[in-house]
């Protein structure tokens, strides 16, 4: 009772069954890789960024936009001075503006809506999320327009006029270092302000569609808020906190929530919150994997039952010459397992290819995701899970036929044939 020989004997049947199993395995690999991809990507991206705590102006969730809060710099300074675990506290404002390479443009294609972040370079700390390709992420370290705690004479000419753009924006407007681009609050560019490109960066946090730029905090505040910043000075959306020891993140977060009427989140909290949003993809994929596994199991089990039925004489003869029930049982199970293993080997390769394809597609469809975000990742865990599933299907589908094989009455069987 050589399982290999038995499989070779009915080659087309074996081939069809193997193909069926390989498709089921491939689909399962793809589905399982979705869960790993999402969890892994979110965690890695946030961890790489180097920001341990995010402080918002209130909010019940770290992924909802938060309220703006005033006196961002003062609050950040107070945090730094009163908690020795804090290496840097960087107040940041982000808003959307329009930009163009010419001040007077009526051609719609020449105007781009972009996301602009304003911060103060010298307050940044060791944030690693941004890779500079050319120049600098702003040359002037301080924020001259807001020197000494007030906006100097409210005249734009006191601006540094420095801007750093991401590579997607640079490519789109065809600008390089020292070129000028104009920023305006409205799409008609009614008050265009010229900025000089001092740097081009590749941020791991920009999706391929969102073009973005960095300018000095007070300059952004003035452009977006106008005269209102005199009444409500220094508005920011968030303060990024960099710690000396990232293990202290939870402590410092609690401390901030106690001492300030703001809401702080650690990067762990954010990644689990974001992960939850994609839970639906995960559940969905597990359901599909389970259903196809059931079909694969039914397939293999039926084929094996029929295989055993075909070979009743052979099995009876084998038993008659002294082979034990145990060895017959094992032989059938092994045959079933072998089919599944062949299917597994082919299926893994198909699954790898399919998983890459699906990843590409999901990234295309979900615009606004950070670059470097993978929806599917094939990790050792995925391989392990699929291997386990294959073995389970192989053994389970062999049980019924193996049981039937050992239950054969040798004499009756040989007499009836």
């Amino acid at each position, binding site marked *: 009772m050589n399982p290999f020989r038995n499989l070779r004997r*009915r080659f*087309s*049947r074996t081939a*069809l069954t193997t193909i*069926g199993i390989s*498709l*089921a395995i*491939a*689909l399962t690999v793809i589905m399982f890789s979705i869960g790993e991809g999402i969890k892994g990507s979110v965690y890695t991206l946030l961890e790489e960024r180097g920001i341990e705590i995010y402080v918002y*102006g*209130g*909010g*019940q*969730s770290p*992924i909802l*936009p938060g*309220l*703006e*809060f*005033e006196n961002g710099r003062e609050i950040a300074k107070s945090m730094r001075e009163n908690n020795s675990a804090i290496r840097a506290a960087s107040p940041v404002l982000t808003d*959307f*503006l*329009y930009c163009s390479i010419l001040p007077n443009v009526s051609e*719609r294609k020449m*105007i*781009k*809506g972009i996301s602009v972040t304003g911060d103060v370079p010298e307050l940044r700390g060791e944030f690693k999320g941004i890779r500079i390709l050319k120049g600098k992420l702003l040359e002037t370290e301080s924020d001259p327009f807001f020197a000494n705690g007030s906006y100097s004479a409210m005249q734009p000419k006191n601006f540094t006029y420095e801007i750093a753009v991401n590579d997607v924006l640079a490519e789109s407007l065809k600008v390089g270092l020292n070129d000028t681009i104009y920023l305006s*609050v*409205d*799409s*008609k560019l*009614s008050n265009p302000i010229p900025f000089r490109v001092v740097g081009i960066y590749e941020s791991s946090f920009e999706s391929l569609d969102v073009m973005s730029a960095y300018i000095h905090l007070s300059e952004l505040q003035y452009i*977006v808020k*106008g*005269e*209102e910043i005199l009444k409500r000075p220094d*508005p920011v959306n968030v303060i990024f906190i960099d710690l000396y020891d990232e293990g202290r993140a939870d402590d410092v977060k609690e401390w901030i929530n106690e001492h300030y*009427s*703001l809401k702080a989140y650690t990067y762990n909290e954010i990644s689990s919150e974001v992960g939850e*949003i994609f*839970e*639906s993809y995960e*559940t*969905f994929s597990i359901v*599909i994997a389970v*259903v*196809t596994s059931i*079909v*694969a199991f*039914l*397939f293999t*089990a*039926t*084929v094996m039952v*029929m*295989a055993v039925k*075909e070979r009743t004489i052979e099995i009876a003869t084998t038993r008659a010459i002294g082979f034990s029930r145990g060895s017959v049982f094992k032989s059938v199970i092994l045959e079933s397992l072998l089919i599944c293993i062949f299917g597994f080997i082919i299926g893994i390769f198909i699954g790898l290819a399919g998983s890459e394809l699906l990843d590409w*597609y999901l990234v*295309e*469809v979900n615009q606004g995701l950070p670059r470097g975000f993978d929806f599917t990742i094939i990790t050792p865990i995925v391989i392990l899970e699929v291997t386990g599933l294959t073995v389970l299907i192989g053994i389970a589908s062999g049980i019924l036929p193996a049981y039937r094989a050992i239950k054969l009455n040798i004499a009756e069987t040989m007499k009836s044939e």
Partner: protein
Amino acid sequence: MTIIAVAISVSLLISMLSIAEGYRITSLRNIQKSKEDVLITAVGTAGISDGHNLSTALRNDVNITEASPILLPFDRVLSVTPLKDENRSSLVFSGGIIPKSQEKFLIDGKKLTIFDYFEVEFDDWFPTKEDKHFNNNYTGEWTSEALIDEILASNLGLEVGDKILISSVSIFDFTNVSEAHVFTVEGIFKTDLKGSGVLKIFQGFIVLHLSELQDILGGKYKDYDMISGLSLSLTQEKKGSGNVERIALDLKERYPYYQILTKKDKIRQVERETAMSNAVYMAIGIVALIIGLLFVISIMLMSIFERTNEIGVMRAIGISRKHIFTQIFLESLLIVLIGALIGLLPAYYGSILISNFISESYGIDMEFTAFTPELIARSMIEIVGIGSLASLFPAWRTMKIEIVEALRRVR
């Protein structure tokens, strides 16, 4: 077991196809229902400036009966606190409209579809229809009227008539009330939004008069009279398709820096979006179906092998190869059909389950799958088609059986 496997495969295929159909059908239905002939939005997310004046100018156009400005700042939240309980507050998304203009777009006098996706139903409307506060550069009278959604009302225990504090900045303590504006809840509206899954962070939605929202948000919203879009309704004679396209083209020339969308454009957008996702769902469904059919082929081959002797006898007594071919082919196809028909029932329940699941996880109370007669017909045709092809192989194999060899084979 074969039939069960086919049934499972078929129900997975049909469920997948129904998801693909679902979103498409719902979006298209919403687009057709809408009273909006043309939508003007900004390129990117920054907004359209000079909203009030632009809407007045467009309303004066002979082809346009109404131009309603809408502000939906999705990158901003407002803080809402009940005056009767200042310890509770919610962060909510907001919308600003001019009631007199927007009410012309309500379907059945109450409903509005936002982004052609989810529905809002207003039982109560603003008492003051004009946007008075805009007069004299935002110094006109405040109506202080607000409409809130059910989720917000339930989170904060609010009823019609209650007073609330609204602010766009973080307030450290409420003694400084000048930072916050007092509004009265004039109505509670229903939305499809459930506050579950992806939208579990969704705390609620509040609608105010346009200029009052702009004033609260301040900055560019007030300095530039910023809005997110304009809904246009054309005169009755101009509603025909050719006219709409021409008017849209004219608007595109006048306002090249904005995006002008007609119903046709929106439909094209939905078709484009759903094409790719449909491909994925179909792929999953078809893989499942292929596995099921491989099963059928396998079983049929084994069955033919078992019946070689019988087939040999049939050939020996004069039954033609063609006849045997047809018999095996039909047998195989029958298994597929029975499995498919049985699979319809779990497919139906499966599609409801999936719809509820997606609804929970996206937080929108909507049907995400479409189990329509057309879908069933289409699926059955596909299954029969692919099933027929699959059935050809075992049938072809029987034709190759030689009579003598077959008769010689002892069971």
